């Protein structure tokens, strides 16, 4: 079973079929250009299934971020770890409906607490396309520090932003 996290305004939960249309719209939109898109519906299905299945393959993964009151899907946040990644990444993508309200930050903090508190990871990083100003701004708000570049044959150069470690968060 995929664990569920609850924050003040949000629930981070397993993906479900009723989320798929919103997810496919996001993957087909210009918003997906920083995360390998835009993608057609067939590709979006594979991405959606893969994000659900990574939980079973790795024991951790990404959640659908849903509105706490309405359960409407707002985005995808969590621990993304394809085989050719430099490690497990704390990743976030907000659908248009979820933007500009601090939801990504609220969800990313919950996901980071899960990585540190439940999985006992010492640290985690995020990969950000340097042209993605909103995402860079969030990485900064989360206290991340730049830590080099990861070059991917498909996604190109992504900047590594290292989060404060579990120890650093405990002592601040």
């Amino acid at each position, binding site marked *: *079973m*995929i*664990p569920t996290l609850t924050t003040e305004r949000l629930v981070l939960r*397993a*993906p*479900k*079929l009723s989320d*798929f249309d919103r997810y*496919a719209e996001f993957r087909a939109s210009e918003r997906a250009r920083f995360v390998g898109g835009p993608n*057609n*519906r*067939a590709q*979006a*299905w*594979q991405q*959606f*299934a*893969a*994000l*659900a*299945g*990574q*939980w*079973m*393959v790795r*024991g*951790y*993964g990404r959640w659908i971020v849903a509105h706490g009151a309405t359960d409407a899907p707002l985005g995808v946040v969590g621990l993304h770890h*394809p*085989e*050719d990644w430099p490690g497990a990444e704390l990743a976030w993508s907000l659908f248009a409906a979820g933007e500009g309200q601090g939801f990504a930050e609220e969800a990313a903090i919950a996901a980071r607490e899960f990585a540190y508190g*439940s*999985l006992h990871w010492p640290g985690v990083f995020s990969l950000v396309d340097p042209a993605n100003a909103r995402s860079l701004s969030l990485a900064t708000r989360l206290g991340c520090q730049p830590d080099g570049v990861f070059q991917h044959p498909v996604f190109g150069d992504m900047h590594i932003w290292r989060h404060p470690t579990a120890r650093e968060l405990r002592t601040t």
Partner: protein
Amino acid sequence: MRVTLSDTPILQTERLTIRAPQAGDEDTLIPFLMSERASWVGGGSDCDLGKAWRIFSIVAGHWVIRGFGTFVYCDRASGRPIGSAGPWYPGNWPEKELGWTVWSPEDEGRGFAFEAVRAVRDHVYGELHWNTAVSYIAHGNKRSRALAERLGCWLDEDALPPYPDEPTWIFRHPGPEGSA
């Protein structure tokens, strides 16, 4: 942390245990996906490790999203995974499919896939209340076509393929009344 698919059915046949995918199946599945034999089903000798792992994630994630998905059939005595058989219904598929693979060439020709698909077909009709099923077979995959025919399927010229650009044999299965 170990995350498993929960409340998934287990089917038994004379020689096989048929269950949901689980961690550890990749030891057998991934070498298959990266072999030429998998070129009919989206893998092949040009499939790299990253893509093979991703396919395994998709197979598992289909269960999460749909509540059903393809099974892994295993040797009943030893538990050794042999192949996959079962329902497959991605968001862009025209209709629900029954698919199958045999992961190792040594297990071909022993009737395992036939045994597994028959049991899974009974399951999708009896438990999931499907009233029909197709199998999409890449044009030229004669072994798979032979199995479809042995399962009583016929070529359905009117059915739509998942990818119009890819030549596909579409086999229609006998319905719930005709498959027992």
